[in-house]
């Protein structure tokens, strides 16, 4: 009998990090960038910058001119072959600016960016697409802009076509395409340029869920082949799934860098100014105070076993309860709520593996003022062993969200044998004696 191997709840980098410098494909050292809020002034500064570039004045003054601010300040990191880095931060924190500097579109005001290899921006889906021309013609134009020669495009053309799933429409003008089709074509062209470094800026939200899954698979495939990534996303799951390291930017400054789940914690702590998840399997959130509350706040999330004991990891096949402790305010007159959650596997293909909602089940839950617990009882917990992340919502109805937690991470363990199972199937075996036998 084969003993089930417990899955490591961490993402194993495809390339073991070494101190070998030759492996570094991207190094960002002390990079800063100034931006100007006022348009007129910004244009004028642009002209002045051009003038000092031409005169050869040593660029990169460390002083801000009036109305300027640091869009990026002293950012440092390194990326090795096959590694992938997630950029985390709120809107306007400098993520896209950093990508644009790495792509060579704009110059840093301080610091050095060194790149070894072709950089392909997945920022630019279908840049250079001309709506009048056919998909076929646009693939050639688009991939040329991305730096491929005619022969290279010829070689990849069929792969692009197959990946984009455009079919017969390839010889129709792009303006007749649906937005999903155009995005697929753009993604397919960009991803087939086979770069050493791929810059991905929030573009994986294109297309239907099936195509998204395909994109994720393709990214994993490229990673195995040694392509490095820089990924900007607001989906924590995606960063956790794909990235081997993360950098957290806040107002252009690097607040932290390192292991993705630690950085993600730090980010979420700042973002929600709520509790952080120190260990997997339980989360405790500081109360945000009555002023900010919509009447009910999640204060902790964890699991209990069948005896009601708090456990760190649910066991596959066992009875388990997901518990959400809340604090409800008396004067808000919330008496019934619905709870929903969606679970994704970290390191998986980015699909939701389980989504449950008490609204869909037609089960409103009573809310009492004060601190109490909502439970969803899951007999025969079906998830296979692994590392998961869960989004949890408390809603007034199907749309109105009262409180939520973005990424509750937990490990599922097992003491059973599970080989080649995607989920746990409760079962009983028996041998039946037939009367006429």
């Amino acid at each position, binding site marked *: 009998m084969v003993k089930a191997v417990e899955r490591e709840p961490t993402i194993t980098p495809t390339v073991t990090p070494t101190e070998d410098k030759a492996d570094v494909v991207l190094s960002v050292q002390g990079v800063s960038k100034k931006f100007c809020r006022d348009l007129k002034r910004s244009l004028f500064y642009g*002209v002045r910058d*051009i003038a000092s570039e031409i005169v050869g004045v040593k*660029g990169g003054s460390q002083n801000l001119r009036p109305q300027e601010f640091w869009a990026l300040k002293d950012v440092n990191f390194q990326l090795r072959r096959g590694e992938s880095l997630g950029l985390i931060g709120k809107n306007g924190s400098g993520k896209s600016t950093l990508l644009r500097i790495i792509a060579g579109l704009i110059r840093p005001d301080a610091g050095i960016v060194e790149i070894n*290899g072709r950089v392909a921006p997945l920022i630019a889906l279908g840049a250079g697409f001309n709506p*009048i*021309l056919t998909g076929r013609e646009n693939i050639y134009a688009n991939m040329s802009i991305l730096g491929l*020669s005619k022969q290279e495009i010829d070689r990849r053309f069929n792969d692009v076509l197959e990946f984009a799933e455009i079919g017969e429409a390839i010889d129709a003008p792009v303006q007749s395409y649906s937005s999903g089709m155009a995005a697929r074509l753009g993604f397919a062209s960009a991803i087939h340029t086979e770069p050493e470094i791929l810059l991905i800026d929030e573009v994986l939200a294109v297309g239907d869920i099936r195509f998204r899954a395909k994109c994720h698979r393709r990214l994993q495939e490229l990673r195995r082949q040694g392509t490095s990534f820089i990924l900007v996303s607001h989906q924590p799951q995606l960063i956790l799934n794909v990235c081997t390291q993360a950098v957290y930017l806040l107002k252009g400054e690097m607040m932290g860098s390192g292991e993705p789940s630690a950085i993600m914690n730090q980010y979420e702590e700042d973002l929600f100014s709520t509790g952080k998840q120190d260990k997997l399997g339980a989360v405790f959130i500081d109360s945000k105070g009555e002023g900010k509350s919509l009447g009910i706040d999640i204060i902790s999330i964890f699991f209990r076993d069948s005896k009601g004991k708090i456990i760190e990891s649910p066991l596959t096949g066992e009875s388990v309860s997901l518990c959400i402790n809340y604090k409800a305010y008396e004067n808000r007159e919330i008496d019934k709520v619905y709870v929903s959650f969606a679970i994704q596997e970290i390191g998986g293909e980015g699909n939701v593996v389980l989504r449950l909602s008490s609204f869909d089940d037609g089960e409103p839950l009573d809310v009492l003022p004060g601190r109490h617990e909502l439970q969803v009882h899951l007999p025969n917990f079906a998830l296979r062993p692994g590392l998961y992340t869960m989004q949890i919502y408390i809603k007034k109805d199907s749309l109105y969200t009262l409180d939520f937690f973005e990424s509750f991470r937990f490990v599922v363990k097992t003491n059973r044998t599970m080989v080649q199972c995607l989920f746990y199937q409760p079962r009983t075996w028996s041998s039946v004696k037939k009367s006429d036998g």
Partner: protein
Amino acid sequence: MQETHKQSNKFKTRAVYTPESQVRHPLKLLRAMWRDLVGSRELAWQLMKRNISAQYRQSVLGVAWAVIPSVVTASLFTFARSSGAVNIGETDLPYPAYVLFSTALWQTFVEALNGPVLAVGQAKQMLVRINFPREALILTKLGELFFNFGFKLILIAGAFIWFQMPLSWSAILAPVALLHLVFLGTAIGVFLAPMSAIYQDFAKGLTVIATLWMFLTPVVYPNPRAGGGIFGTLVKFNPATPLLVTVRELTTTGIVSNPQGFWIASAIAIVGLLLAWLFYRLAMPFVVERMSS
């Protein structure tokens, strides 16, 4: 196979971005300029194919638009002159042929002038997203210009046959002079392109100047004789004059009336183009920065 390709690529594409002015490393800068010019040929070819096929796919008259402006201008001036509305002196060639030939040349010059400014304006979305050799935009427009000139050439040839004008043997040298004329227009266009992406005033001003410039160049009237007051002086010191006149003379009479002026203007065009290219290259990253901030 694929892997070796990737490897070879890896070493080709090493890049370092610093805030330091590129002018401080002139050798490196010149090498990079040359590399990008050579490297952008294929992209320019693809973009040219894209632009030309898109341009004519949405048009009934299609390539006829390459010659229509010249034909309209020529007919207008021929009519105005014959009806006595304007007083234009005698030309060496039959006037309709003269003005048709000249406006075709002038139109080509204006295309060279406007090309880079238009190219940068149209490629905004690409420029702010992808780091491709910026030279490709200029080459694309030059390619389109020569494509269009091909059709103008048919028109010019038609005029020569219709008016039974003899072709000088020196016509084979005319393309050189034409190239210098295109260089002059391109030099100014390339110089203005980054600025026009920052301030719209440049693009608007260029339209006004192009119209004015035509009247300071012997396009619809013959070369002014020596002297000729302020206007004559302006026409004489206009660098487009000797270039355009030389193309015309090489094709028809074979006698270049102002070789010295031609060579000075050619030097201005070629040196100007190189300087404009340098400026364009240095300025574009800053332009891209301001385009999207």
